């Protein structure tokens, strides 16, 4: 049993070392790193939208972490914004950094696509906007009504996608998710991005 115990204890200690380097130290460093002063907390509606983003698994196709143009030039050139810093995510619990770009990076989608009409239309059926899009439709986030009531947010559709009668109206969930999209705007400066001492030649 002694040798078996030695293996198990040795294995545990090695993992604890890895935990120190991969969990504890980064946590200490990143929580001490300055949060950009212009980062705004999420409103309640935006936070609710964020929960819907999580519930519907948007993270499995979309990232929220543009890379440095010196490393991966495409990210900035596509208009996805400056590279993100740890402080940008101070209000994000859980993080939604994402690991797939089946769809575009969304870190600055609120700056890039600030129209709530666009967000709702695209959410209802992405193919209305991009006919070859492979993003799913989210009809269950909308209601089909005979006539929109006062205060309802109607989603206007081309004939090919509109219902035969009645109108499509956004639910509170759809509006919250769209608000979260608009909140994704990190174009403010990030003081912790490294600075050169003098301009590049």
């Amino acid at each position, binding site marked *: *049993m002694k040798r*078996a115990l030695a*293996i198990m204890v040795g*294995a*545990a200690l*090695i*993992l*604890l*070392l*890895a*935990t120190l*380097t*991969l*969990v504890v*130290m*980064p946590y200490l*460093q*990143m*929580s001490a790193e300055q949060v950009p002063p212009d980062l705004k907390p999420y409103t309640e509606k935006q936070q609710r939208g964020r929960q819907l983003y999580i*519930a*519907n*698994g*948007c*993270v*499995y*196709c979309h*990232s929220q*972490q543009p890379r*440095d143009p010196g*490393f*991966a*030039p*495409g990210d900035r*050139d596509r208009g996805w914004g400056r*590279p*993100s810093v*740890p402080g*940008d*995510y*101070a209000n*994000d*619990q*859980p*993080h939604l*950094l994402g*690991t797939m*770009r*089946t769809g*575009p990076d969304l870190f600055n989608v609120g700056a890039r696509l600030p129209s709530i009409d666009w967000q709702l239309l695209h959410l209802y059926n*992405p*193919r209305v906007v991009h006919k*070859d*899009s*492979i*993003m*799913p*439709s*989210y*009809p*269950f986030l909308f209601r089909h009504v005979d006539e929109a009531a006062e205060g309802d947010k109607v989603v206007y559709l081309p004939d090919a996608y509109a219902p035969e009668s009645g109108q499509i109206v956004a639910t509170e969930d759809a509006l919250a998710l769209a608000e979260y999209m608009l909140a994704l705007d990190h174009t403010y400066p990030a003081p912790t991005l490294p600075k050169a001492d003098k301009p590049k030649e």
Partner: protein
Amino acid sequence: MTPTIAILLIITFVLSTVGLLLLIWSIANNQFSHGQAAARTIFSPGEEGHSEDPALADKPAFTGDTTAQASAIKARWTADQSSRTAVLTWLSSAVFWLLLGSFFGLITSLKMHLPEFLVSSEFLTFGRVRPVHLNAVTYGWASMAGIGAALFLIPRLFKTSLAGGKYAVLGAVVWNIGLIFGLIAITLGYSDGEEWLEFPWQIDILFVFGGALCAIPLLLTAANRQVEHLYVTSWYLMAALVWFPILFLIANLPFTFPGASGATVNWWFAHNVLGLWVTPIGIGIAYYMIPKILGRPIISYQLSLIGFWSLALFYSQVGIHHLIGGPIPTWLVTLSIVHSVMMSIPVITVAINHHGTMMGNFKRLKDSPTLRFVWIGALMYTVSSLQGSMEALRSVNVVTHFTHYTVAHAHLGMYAFLSFILFGAVYFIMPRLTNWEWPWRRMISLHFWLVSIGILIYVVSLTITGWKQGVALLDAAMPFMDIVRMTIPGLQARTLGGILMTAGHLVFAAHFVAMLMHRGASNEQPTLFRPTTKETAQ
């Protein structure tokens, strides 16, 4: 902060490499010869070097004449009987989750090129079926089959009956309940939001209990063991059973790691599920099955030592290669990249052991299902790990990150490596527990070809597509929608691969049930790919 981080970096690197060098030095100085001598006593006199070959006509493998052989057989049988109920419970559950996970995988794959498929229901939206697939195959199929194999192998390795097997059965029940609740939760939209950690943390508690209930019998069995030498498989299994609870507990703690540091914990966990949970189980099984089928020893004890400890030292710190280029400190990313490349050390040593032992015996692949599945799995371990070491380099990762290439790599590892080994293990274990032989040779063959061709199509199509996707993402000259269009054929090919794999699983599951129910003709011979009338080691 700068000096501290730099020093820590140097310390961890030095620790890992010094640890490794110490191990090598102590091997060189025969510190482990004691272990080797003990190893040699396992072979009963006269049994060494027995290579079992169906072509050797009249020589039966073992007649049970000598008392040493008789006691060896009895020890095996006793071990198998003691673990029977527990193992069958875990394996049967695993096969069910394999089916469910495969179907959800297929639905997910179809949705990627048929986006309007099953789109009206929120319960079947892509973002929910995809994590159902991942969690069902990881915590359902892979983990449960792995635990089942461990429960079978540990009594064998320690030549001791499994103590407290009923706890393990209860553990399976609790684990299954956790899976049901967890997968329903994801379907209803309740997710903890991080990849590989989607189950709500309240439900995770069930997995902690279920797993702990298995740990008790295994630790008790280890305490009761009758052998002095620990065979390499047992190191891997014991370590895996220590590592997984630590990982699972820390990563699932709610409200503890917000923001970007949550991402480092996320990927410390997720990659260690691969490296410190399923990989050791897979390698450990291969270390048992290959020499067992061949009747030859693994070629090098020294290499198995180096392979195990270097895996522990290096694999544990590779996780941050999932965040290259991200909002994570550069020193941490570099640390993971270096450790990812260092992983080639354990991979090569394990490869020499596994494949070196196979040298001169490749013709056995024609008849033994266990060997064929397990060895191909071991080969795919070598391939996918070396690929992974390269993928971690920044210059490669800048292309492959965020693309389907990563998905292909993940399936090369989890499926072509791990699942193939688990298939092989099931083909070995079941006859010993059900006192029956696999009813139909053709079903094993069909299973093999369906899943092999399926995963081949899957990995090749997505690897190529993903690479092209990554190259295109780096150059904004190609509009994003053009990139999407370009990936469609690869995604369709992946669905084809997935259909074949799922069909293979249906065949496997049907055969598994038939085995449980003692269907088919009663047989004294093992069911091999080639019909044979001679008794063989299988």
